């Protein structure tokens, strides 16, 4: 019998407690720093080594480079991630030797047409907010560990 009153007390007390909900669509929800969100791509750093495209488990990265006239190597020409199949597994950013592709904390990918899910170089380059911070430090550390 006393349990009933106790239960009523609990709910009454809960009514005045601060709400735990977020105003999500109105206010953006910030993800923690290690969140695996939509990639940011920096064409300046890319050396067209193709490692990201090869390690990608769903083959969603397509890239092409073009010959540089005076120097050795290539520069990136097109870079596309197909977010229909991308599983945001973080492997492309881990394998990238220069940190040209990095994870951000952005996650809003909903679109009305599937075609819009092919994100090209320009779009990925402009996706430059909330870039994951630990990336640069980790690149150096990982290389050190391997050797």
């Amino acid at each position, binding site marked *: 019998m006393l349990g009933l009153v106790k*239960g009523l007390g609990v709910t009454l007390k809960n*009514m005045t407690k601060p*709400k735990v909900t977020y105003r999500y669509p109105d206010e953006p929800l910030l993800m923690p720093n290690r969140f695996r969100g939509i990639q940011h791509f920096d064409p300046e750093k890319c050396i067209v080594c193709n490692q990201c495209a090869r390690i990608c488990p769903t083959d969603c990265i397509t890239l092409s480079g073009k010959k540089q006239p005076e120097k050795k190597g290539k520069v990136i020409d097109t870079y596309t991630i197909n977010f229909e199949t991308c599983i945001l597994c973080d492997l492309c950013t881990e394998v990238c030797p220069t940190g040209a592709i990095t994870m951000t904390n952005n996650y809003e990918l909903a679109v009305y047409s599937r075609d819009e899910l092919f994100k090209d170089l320009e779009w990925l380059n402009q996706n430059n907010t909330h870039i994951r911070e630990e990336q640069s430090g980790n690149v150096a550390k990982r290389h050190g560990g391997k050797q």
Partner: protein
Amino acid sequence: MNSWLLIGPVLLLLVVLLFVVYAIFFERKVIGWAQNRIGPNRVGYWGLLQTVADVLKLLFKEDVIPNKSDELLFRIAPIIAFVPSFAVLAVIPFSDSIRFSDFAIGLLYYMALSSITIIGILIGGWSSNNKYSLMGGMRSAAQMISYEIPLVMSVVGIVLSVGSLNLTEIVEAQKDVWFIVPQFVGFVVFLIAAISELNRCPFDLPEAESELVAGYHVEYSGFRFAFFMLTEYVYMFAMAALTTVLYLGGWNAPFGLTFIPPIIWFVLKFLLIVFFLFWLRATMPRLRADQLMQFSWKVLLPIALLNILLTCVLKEVPVIGAYF
């Protein structure tokens, strides 16, 4: 006088509809608050138009009548359920001047009419030709009939001490002491039985979403579903008003605060009961089906009978007898 006969009920219907709209809204708000949520807040300022939007949606929906259902019964079931729920409001005295009809057996009228709704629910469950709705309807009928008995029995205590079934006289008898004090046992039994009559949590077995999908109104959609929903909330209005009249002194002001108009006092007490119902729903889990009947017949009914006996005995005791 004659024009009031027409305008009065229409006004009451509007008030009741407004109450239903905002009762549903505040129910969702209160349950939200109890769960540390905000509740509906998207439609209109502070979400105030949420229920209006919901009702509009129901009105625009297609009126589906299942192929293998009993069409005539399916059509009239919501009407049979709704009409008594509004008709019982006729005897409720809202204040010393606002009332619709005032006859000698008001309480009996309420109890008798409110049990007609069970038939509507049963017909709705049966005519849908669906096992969930049939089970919901059966459960509902069994539950509402068994809880009607302790409900009536708990009120007998009041009838004994007032010596009348007229609701106005019952309120007049509470000028000094509200019946919640001398009839506390009766009040508890009445409240529990009333919640069960309303099919509300923790006695919402007839519409247990998790076991029966939705109970007797599974097959109903659109306007007819809205009518069943409306019935439930009009009954909540009626039952909260009846509880106020029977146990909380109706429009009588407590502590001699008579400068506040009687209707305000009535509304305040009424809203307290309504809030209690929401609060209870936010708190309690559902009763098990096999415990439900036992609780009614083996616990509530004996306590209600004991309350009658106690009232009879205490009425004869010199000093305390004045309160009974």
